């Protein structure tokens, strides 16, 4: 691990200034990816700007139509939040299923989105709920945010401050976890917001993506049965020792059906 400077600013502005002062700075959120990468010598930033001291990046607020989560809010806090559980229970459930307790107590929403690991859970929620990623410079709709494997629309030094999630009529997330890492082998977030259905798939492809055929079928009939016969092409899916592309394609169908069932059950329960 190479030596680096360490700074812990108190405001978003200070964080931006600190970043700009570095030749090769890096923001540190929960550190669940960055710290291991540093230890392996795969990243060698000149300075780390720790965002943990910025109060403006913390917290959860809800209105009737929108749930806003600060970028530095941990997964554990989202999972346990009464506001999230009431507004979008599927989001609380997703956060509670990320990694393990240690990861959930350190990892953050903003860190997960900025990293955009193709197997991470949060991108599926952001894309399916058509959330808006708010940064220190602009507002980025979910459809334009995830641009590829570990790639996002964020500019150099641009900092996520909040994510605004529309409160869905129905939503649920179903994931088949990797037995070792507990990342998604295939995770499907299904949401109906303002009458429109969106289905986002994570873990199975090179990045989170929407399943258009499933969305069309569920638009007509929001029941798991409506997905029968919709085959997901394995052509663009990833394969590794844990799951072949064909198995992932199959799991997407199973998880989508289970997510729809859960979304309908959630409404019943409420």
């Amino acid at each position: 691990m190479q030596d680096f400077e360490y700074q812990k600013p108190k405001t978003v502005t200070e964080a931006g200034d600190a970043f700009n002062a570095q030749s090769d700075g890096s923001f540190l959120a929960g550190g669940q990816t960055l710290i291991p990468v540093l230890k392996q010598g795969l990243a060698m930033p000149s300075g780390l700007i720790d965002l943990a001291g910025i109060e403006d990046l913390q917290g959860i607020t809800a209105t009737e139509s929108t749930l806003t989560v600060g970028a530095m809010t941990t997964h554990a806090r989202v999972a346990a939040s009464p506001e999230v559980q009431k507004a979008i229970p599927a989001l609380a459930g997703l956060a509670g299923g990320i990694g393990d307790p240690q990861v959930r107590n350190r990892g953050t929403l903003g860190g997960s989105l900025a990293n955009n690991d193709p197997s991470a859970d949060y991108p599926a929620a952001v894309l399916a709920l058509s959330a808006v990623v708010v940064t220190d410079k602009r507002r980025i709709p979910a459809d334009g945010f995830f641009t590829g494997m570990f790639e996002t629309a964020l500019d150099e030094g641009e900092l996520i401050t909040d994510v605004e999630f529309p409160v869905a009529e129905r939503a649920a997330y179903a994931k088949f976890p990797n037995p070792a890492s507990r990342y998604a082998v295939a995770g499907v977030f299904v949401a109906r917001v303002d009458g429109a259905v969106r289905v986002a798939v994570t873990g199975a492809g090179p990045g989170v993506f929407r399943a258009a055929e499933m969305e069309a079928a569920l638009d007509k009939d929001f029941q798991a049965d409506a997905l029968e016969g919709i085959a997901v092409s394995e052509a663009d899916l990833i394969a590794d020792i844990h799951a072949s592309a064909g198995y992932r394609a199959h799991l997407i169908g199973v998880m989508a059906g289970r997510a729809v069932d859960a979304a309908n059950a959630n409404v019943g329960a409420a």
Partner: protein
Amino acid sequence: MTDVTIGQPVRRSEDERFLTGRGRYIDDINLEGQARAVVLRSVYAHACIKNIDASGALAMEGVLLVVTGEDWIAEGFGPMPTKTAIRKNRDGSELSEPPRHCLAIGRVRYVGEPVALVVAETDPIARDALDLIDVDYESLDAVTDAVEALAPDAPQLWDDIPGNLCIDFELGDREGVEKAFAEADHVITLDLENNRVTAVPIEPRGCVGSYDPETDTYLLYNSTQNVHAIRDTLAENVFGIDKEKIRHIAPDVGGGFGVKNSAYPEPPLVLYAAKKLGRPVKWINNRSESFLSDTHGRDQISKVELALDGDGTFRALRTDTIGNLGAYCATIGPFTPTGGSARTQGGPYDFPVMYYRGRAVFINTGPMDPYRGAGRPEATFQTERIIEYAARQLGLDPIEIRRKNLMRPEKLPHKTSMGLNIDCGDFPKVFERTLKLADPGSFAERAEQIKTAGRRFGFAIAPYLECTGGGPKEFAGVAFGADGTVSLSVGSQSTGMGHETSMAQLLAARLGIPFERVEYHQADTDKTPIGGGHGGSRGMELGGNAVAQAAGEVIEKASGLAAHLLQSKAADLTFEGGSFKDSGSGASVSMVEVIEASFDSERLPDDLEPGCLDTGSTFERGEISIPNGCHAAAVEVDPKTGAILLLGYWVVDDFGTIINPLLADGQVMGGVAQGIGQVLTENIVFDDSGQLITGSLMDYGLPRADGVPDMVIEYYEGAPTKKNPLGVKGAGEAGCVGSLPAVVNAVLDALKEFGVVHIDIPLTSEKVWRAVQDQGAHDPKGLIEGAL
């Protein structure tokens, strides 16, 4: 101050220290002025080393030393030989053993093989210096599959070992088995794989070494399971010095499971560097390096054949195993796929004849050595899988076929075709008790509910029989202090399993002294003249019996002093409940008082000195003992995804006398968890070029607490063995021995309506899902014949 008894669930006295961060592990040991060592490891599975240029590293500020294989050979150091007891091929010739030096000499044979040692002022400097060593490799073809390595055109690892074959071993009655097969109504054959895993102890390996030029002696702190045997290898085989020249100490060790049994290259390299530099040297493996450089276990492919009568009576068992050794013979590497897997073939069943053939094969991976069970889990898996498979093929009830063939107690003692002397036990009783605890009949309603939810319920029962192992002698020393403490030094070793409690409990109970007064010591070659360390479930069997024997000697010595104190004759005294009593006068004196008197010149007779009660005792085992028992597992399987959930787990064990049931429970639970891990998620995977794919915990699936069910554990104590005075049979590995077949057979039971009869482990969700898709299409002879 507490009185304890044998069989009492005394809570672990070491846990407060461990849980509050006051354990003293290898990385907690720092010697003044120490430098740090890091190993440069091969990035090729098979390559010639054309040249090593370390000048860049040596020019770096803070780098103190670089050692290469050429330097090592130039010093005249010897290789680390295998110490396996199994050394003969079927034709009587010796096994083929290549030299295993501490650094690669001219050629690397696995990814992770040590190529050079770098020593620097700090660990980060040493790690940075690795990048500045220029190794000129010429890549060679690699083979990473043991069956493929036997093929005529396979890449050859060793010029003088043709066909990559280390040993071709056999045991049992070959002709008798052939005859039985010819006469049997049914012969059932199944090829199966026992996958490659590694132990992943929570504490990685590491060591700290120093050299004292005045006395010409070395001091080595090492995270190991076996200080005496490894010291002997380092002194006698590597350095060619008297073994007394090395003091070898293991501090607290965070898990071993066999992976820390081996003599590894790093400790001798560290000692050499310490002498060369004139300052202590420390080396700590990280987790990624551990996956590459720790020994791995299992990794066998077997053809198993069972001959039965029409009514399901077993006639014969034959197993032909090809075991992977890695590129070298590690400390007892060739033992596991040969004698280790042969001895307990057939388990607790009444087989008239058995035969086992085992070949150990060199391939381009790191070395294999024991992993919890070292052959007995493999043997049990082979036996229980072929029985389950045969039951399915022949339409027999898997419970009934087992019940019918279990060896009856009146048949004991019995010597099996494998030469195993089964002295005692009641296998039918243990089997029926397990069934009663699990009560599979009560699951019908739950199974229906599970099916309604789209999943399937499965249940299986797996009797097992194993044997202990490890060094046949053990030492226990007892020394009393004037302050009332009792120092107990034992040559067996705890790597976390709780000997600090159980050995102290045993001594305290035997002497009738307060438990808290016993100070336990282990794993220091200066503290005990011999020591067999940890391995083969030998702790209580060897160490425990040594402690009991030493306690007997103390009582003998103390009775003389007690007689003096009571003005009696020693012959008139009885020792019971911690007191000596004169049967005539009724006068008595406690052991605690006798110990106090032994330090009181007023009360000591003229011919005795303080310390007169101290003793050192060596216990020698006559025969290995035979732990046995029965496991049962209930699972649910989701045929749509292949996901498996364990619903329940039941164990009845016959470990003979139980010293501390709480600690025995811990051994069983840990072993079962490791078995569940191997069966469901753990798997070491190499690609065709020999690169390790599962090099981190992101890909190597250790079991987690939420995947391991609550367990019901009971002990059958009706058959203590007479093979040792305590009547103990060994508890450390049994959990791992019974759990592989119990879980696999339960999963296959859940899938029976889909026609699935066999899936090789690990039962990954994809393999399970595909087996359901394939409706049981399976080639029972696909692994060996088809591949060779």
